[in-house]
């Protein structure tokens, strides 16, 4: 008897392997399959048998749909947090004299650690000692870190940001190669360009069920690519919200908030996904 769990869904080709799939649908292969000699992104599904193949692909499509719900919740959490950002009565003027804004994260909040991490990253950008009572952080234009923890938070956000930039660049420039293998035998290969051109390679004489499985595999890969682009939208929209609130950063410095938003969104998604296990 074969199990759906025996199926392998792998995604490879990113120059940097940092968090290749925040939706938890695809895993990174142990070794990158490069036998075909192509550069670029590859989604590959290996299924143990034809009978369970379609169910296995549909089950992963459900995982992707739940991941999309997680993304929506992460976006809502960020928006709710932004709604609480207000001018700080006791921090109206930062060290540079610029008007500062502050927010606090009560311990009872959902996703408290993630919100704390966001606060810490922001503090790394504009360090003013947090209030010991409220935990409020004021944004201002100071170019020093308050402590090592803030520096580390900022460095980590920066490193992951670099990986994210590389991944988006590849995703929006290269062909997506989608392969379906059933019981060790190639069934179908489809390459989809950034603008949607399709090239499909079929092995003649494949049963209809196998062909349908490959079509659904292609749908899953394309939906995954679109979901990653949706992450980009949510992050930049969230960053725009932070920018509006953090008016005291130096001119042009507001763009630094995009990596902070990216980290928050993906961290919350990871927590939600983990909570279902």
């Amino acid at each position, binding site marked *: 008897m074969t199990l759906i769990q025996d199926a392998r869904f792998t995604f490879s080709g990113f120059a940097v392997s940092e968090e290749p799939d925040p939706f938890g649908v695809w895993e990174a292969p142990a070794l990158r399959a490069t036998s075909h000699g192509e550069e670029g992104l590859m989604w590959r599904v290996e299924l143990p048998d034809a009978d369970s193949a379609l169910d296995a692909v549909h089950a992963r499509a459900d995982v992707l749909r739940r991941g999309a719900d997680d993304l929506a919740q992460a976006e809502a959490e960020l928006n709710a947090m932004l709604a609480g950002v207000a001018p700080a009565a006791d921090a109206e003027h930062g060290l540079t004299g610029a008007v500062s804004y502050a927010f606090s994260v009560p311990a009872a909040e959902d996703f408290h650690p993630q919100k704390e991490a966001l606060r810490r990253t922001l503090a790394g950008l504009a360090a003013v000692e947090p209030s010991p009572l409220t935990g409020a952080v004021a944004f201002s234009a100071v170019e020093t870190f308050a402590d090592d923890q803030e520096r580390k938070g900022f460095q980590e956000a920066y490193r992951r940001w670099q990986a994210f930039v590389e991944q988006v660049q590849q995703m929006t420039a290269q062909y997506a190669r989608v392969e379906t293998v059933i019981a060790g035998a190639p069934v179908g290969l489809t390459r989809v360009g950034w603008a949607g051109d399709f090239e499909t390679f079929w092995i003649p004489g494949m049963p209809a069920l196998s062909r349908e499985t490959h079509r659904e595999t292609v749908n899953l890969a394309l939906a995954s690519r679109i979901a990653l682009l949706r992450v980009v*939208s949510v992050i930049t*929209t969230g960053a725009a919200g932070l920018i509006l609130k953090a008016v005291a950063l130096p001119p042009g410095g507001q763009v630094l908030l995009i990596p902070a938003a990216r980290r928050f969104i993906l961290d919350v998604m990871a927590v939600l996904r983990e909570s279902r296990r």
Partner: protein
Amino acid sequence: MPGDNVSTGNTKDLKASVQKFASDLAANVENFVTDISELEVRTYTIAEGKFAAVLDDPKKKNDKVITGEGVQLRAYTRIAFDSDTIVCLPVNDSGQIDGAVWDMHQAAVNQALQNRATMLRTIGDAAASALDALKKSR
């Protein structure tokens, strides 16, 4: 690690990185809008046993090298944005339309059209949010 030497003193690097990200994304969206003026769908058959390899010329969309045993282009459809369509039908050895290949090709065309519609919406959202963030950051 890229971030090991980061300090607030060189947040300029990060700022430049973010701005490059936004400008690259804008360029890719522009390419998308240009390329999307027509949609091409190709269906090939290939001998059993191994997938084909395709090497693209990044500068010329239609210049590519395809390697694989028994690779044959069997059907082709090009749909322009104004819906002008060119279709090359697959035929078998006796000159009849190969129904099996044609069905597979038709399914791929439908899938490609559906994907393009979804991509248009998604890219529109991504571009709008990136522009919004950039506008606010200036």
